[in-house]
């Protein structure tokens, strides 16, 4: 008796470069696995290994950005045909998000070399696992694998939120874990409803079935999608599901908070991907658009009020993350494709700036940050992380640190508030131009008003916080900037500046990505009809 289905034999023409798509997942998990076997005191080795991995991830992401500009790369795991096997799809949007995650991760990691890598056990392994989950969520073409990658990402993020220990982190972590466990249950209910009504979990297959009339029980399917959407909106902290975000991100240690900034963007990415793929056309076209618009607008409003009320920089950075997620959601809700291209550009710039702001805030508020050495659980942990004898050799203090920090804070403010010449402004301008092309809907005017006011009310508190942290004399010792911290900060800010300097090509890339996303037939055909390679 032969099994009913066997994977087809590998054709001889499989090039090594075809496996590039799976590397952003395999590489971090392999290195993270090795990391857990190593003694935690071999910090230099761990740092070198993680740095090499992150550099490789950024390189792979950039190569993928180049390779997917014409056609997507579909990787069939085990070479099983598409609706039955697991597929990983790298298209323009995935490649862009991979590059963003890699860059943010690289800078956060370099920042952690100065201090935070030693604030608790197993930092580097958790960090790499988080990136593996994020990369997997960007690459997968299947709803259930999306769930698994979400869980990997979240499990690692629970560890990272608690990194450094202390009462604030544990209290924030308890709420964060509870909220996300409930979100995961919503995710499961949604996934099983979608499977029960449509009989498939492959995104491309779902889209194809939705294009044909008479597919499944449509009402129940839409209920399932709404519940799924709830789970994703909790992840991207849309109002009223996102009250957990500012507290958690403010409590997390700086490098963890910076990398967590990409986590909420994973939620945004999934909403974007599924809305355009499943509800762009077909049986339930436009499903959920109104809800996403309202959620996005309310998130911008809530984030703006929150940033006005923040009394320290980390909370302000948390609300900035919310505003940037809300902007992309609201633009998606208006249904304007030209504006969405601008929103993609804005997403990259604002995420980088929010990450940089978390790092900056930690240096400026270091005197006030309660860090407690946790009780060691395993024998190889540091007893007193920040009083290590070699802590002083890690990086030389940079002279004129305050001036550099001031410039950095100014640049972050310019991006987040959308003031020229940095990408925040270019992105918002592109959104406005997209919204005002042709007839402007009421939703469009609402969004323009909301974004303009949010710019103003971001600028004001950021200037106030800047004055408070840089100019007002206080008893804290002057902030000390170490070389690795400077490298990380300038890396993020240089990426922002590059995004503005090469704004033309970047916007053209975002535009082409939108053109690709709004015609999902090509995606569906590439996944389902591409055939075994």
């Amino acid at each position: 008796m032969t099994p009913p289905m066997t994977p087809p034999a590998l054709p001889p023409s499989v090039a090594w470069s075809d496996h590039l798509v799976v590397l952003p997942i395999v590489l971090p998990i392999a290195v993270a696995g090795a990391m857990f076997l190593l003694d935690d005191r071999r910090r230099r080795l761990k740092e070198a290994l993680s740095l090499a991995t992150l550099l490789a991830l950024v390189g792979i992401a950039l190569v993928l950005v180049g390779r997917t500009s014409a056609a997507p790369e579909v990787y069939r795991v085990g070479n099983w045909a598409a609706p039955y096997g697991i597929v990983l799809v790298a298209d323009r949007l995935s490649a862009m998000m991979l590059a963003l995650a890699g860059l943010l991760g690289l800078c956060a990691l370099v920042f952690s070399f100065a201090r935070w890598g030693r604030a608790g056990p197993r930092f580097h392994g958790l960090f790499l696992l988080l990136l593996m989950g994020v990369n997997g969520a960007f690459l997968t073409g299947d709803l259930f694998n999306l769930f698994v990658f979400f869980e990997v990402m979240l499990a690692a993020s629970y560890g990272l939120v608690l990194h450094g220990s202390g009462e604030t982190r544990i209290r924030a972590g308890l709420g964060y874990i509870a909220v996300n466990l409930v979100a995961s249950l919503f995710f499961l209910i949604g996934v099983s409803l979608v499977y029960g009504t449509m009989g498939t979990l492959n995104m491309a297959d779902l889209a194809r079935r939705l294009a044909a009339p008479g597919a499944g029980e449509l009402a129940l399917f839409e209920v399932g999608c709404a519940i799924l959407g709830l789970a994703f909106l909790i992840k991207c902290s849309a109002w009223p599901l996102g009250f957990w975000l500012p507290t958690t991100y403010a409590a997390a240690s700086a490098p963890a908070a910076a990398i967590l900034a990409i986590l909420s963007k994973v939620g945004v990415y999934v909403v974007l991907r599924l809305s355009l793929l499943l509800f762009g056309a077909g049986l339930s076209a436009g499903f959920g658009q109104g809800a996403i618009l309202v959620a996005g607008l309310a998130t911008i409003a809530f984030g703006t009020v929150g940033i006005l009320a923040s009394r320290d920089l980390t909370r302000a950075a948390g609300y900035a993350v919310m505003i940037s997620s809300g902007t992309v959601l609201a633009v998606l809700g208006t249904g304007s494709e030209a504006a969405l291209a601008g929103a993609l550009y804005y997403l990259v710039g604002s995420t980088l700036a929010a990450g940089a702001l978390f790092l900056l805030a930690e240096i400026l508020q270091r005197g006030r940050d309660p860090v407690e050495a946790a009780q060691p659980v395993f024998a190889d942990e540091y007893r007193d992380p920040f009083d290590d004898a070699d802590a002083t050799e890690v990086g030389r203090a940079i002279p004129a640190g305050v001036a550099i920090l001031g410039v950095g804070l100014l640049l972050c403010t310019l991006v987040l508030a959308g003031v020229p010449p940095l990408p925040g402004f270019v992105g918002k301008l592109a959104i406005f131009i997209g919204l005002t092309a042709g007839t402007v809907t009421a939703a469009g005017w609402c969004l323009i008003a909301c974004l303009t006011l949010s710019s103003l009310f971001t600028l004001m508190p950021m200037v106030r916080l800047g004055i408070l942290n840089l100019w007002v004399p206080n008893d804290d010792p002057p902030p000390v900037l170490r070389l690795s911290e400077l490298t990380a900060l300038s890396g993020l800010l240089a990426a922002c500046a590059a995004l503005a300097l090469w704004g033309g090509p970047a916007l053209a890339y975002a535009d082409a990505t939108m053109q690709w996303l709004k015609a999902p037939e090509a995606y569906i055909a590439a996944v389902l009809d591409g055939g075994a390679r």
Partner: protein
Amino acid sequence: MELVLSLGIGVLAAAGVWLMLRPRSFQVALGLSLLSYAVNLFIFAMGRLTVGAPPVLGAGTGIGQDSVFVDDPVTQALVLTALVISFALTALFLVVLLAARGITGSDHVDGREPHPGQQSPGEPHPGRPQP
């Protein structure tokens, strides 16, 4: 069987939601695990209910013969994955819960008692074990 299963899911979910809205962190942990049982049963139900049907195609069953007698294996695989993940994460939640209890000295979900000194009649004081 449909009635029993739906009643089971409903009771588990209702109890889970109620427990999750309680102020003590251990109640929240119990609520989360009850909810995850309800969700796992729900995933099973989405694969349609069959009695005594194998999830694997064998010699006597199969498409073209009598596919009614084959259970949907996909939902079972989904349940297995979801089960492991929710079990592991609930265990993690318990660890954080204990850490919060130890560090803050309170098992309230906010990490502090809402009205110190004044204690609601239904809630035993967390610091003192009940006789």
